[in-house]
């Protein structure tokens, strides 16, 4: 299926979970990011169980502590 991940189209297997997508995109740790799906923040406890749907827009929002 097709997803938009960080603004770019990505072809993935159907029913991929958020955690699987994080792995596939080489995000070192799920703790490094917040995940937004279609404009809404997904709570961290739901990363494992949430399956993505065709055309979902997914953003990985990285913690940045510098200033």
């Amino acid at each position, binding site marked *: 299926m097709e997803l938009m991940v960080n603004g770019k189209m990505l072809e993935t297997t159907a029913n991929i979970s958020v955690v699987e997508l994080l792995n596939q995109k080489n995000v070192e740790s799920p703790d490094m990011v917040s995940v937004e799906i279609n*404009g809404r*923040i997904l709570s*961290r406890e739901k990363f494992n169980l949430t399956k993505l749907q065709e055309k979902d827009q997914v953003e990985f*929002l990285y913690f940045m502590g510098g*200033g």
Partner: protein
Amino acid sequence: MDYTDDQLERYSRHIILRDVGVEGQMKISKAKVLVIGAGGLGSPALLYLAAAGVGTIGIADGDVVDLSNLQRQVIHATQDINTPKIISAKRKINNLNLDVNVVTYEEMLNSQNITRIIEEYDFIIDGTDNFPAKFLVNDACIFSKKPFSHAGILQFFGQTITVVPGESTCYRCIFHKPPPLDVVPSCAQAGVIGVIAGVIGTLQANEAMKFILEKGNLITNRLLTFDALESKFRDLPIKKNPECPVCGEKPVITELMDYEQAACKIGTK
């Protein structure tokens, strides 16, 4: 209050702007903006706000200038090494524009002192360099209903969002709590390109200007990210989170807290 001829000339490029004028410049002259952290983000923010003639600028920082700061903290100079940042920054602002009343707080903000300080200001700029401080600024501004500009930078990346408490998405709506220690590197550990501080800190000053002038659209309900390698901005709409622990429907955070994570652990430079 009336402007002198020198002031009219100093601010002439603002005054001829249709969306500023003498009236807008007067708003700037009466405004009070607090910049927390006189570092990478705070440096350009402070310089632009001072040049613009913001009437009162507060600076809160408990650090001294370090040689490794000078690659990006452009308000400080080589001769300022070992000088408190608030002193160094105040000196530069005074050199630039004596119209500005500079108020300094030589302290790291914590749950005990932050509310007293932010209460004095119209708009807050978060230029802090660690997660406990960023969450503290968010919560304090939410509780005190102070609009503020959040930003974070790392390596070649930066992001910023403006929060209008009660109305728009807050920092905790996006990032519920600080990440576990050592999962996310600090600038001291992972590096930061100097100019990203300039890009993002300048955007923060622009937020203060728009807020003061009541013009344009603030960066609310969206996270603006910048990739300095690609030179690309992305504007990500983010809805206010009903599950937000501080501004959601059932807030679980109802008072300020100091995260134990020591600031030095996640970088103070």
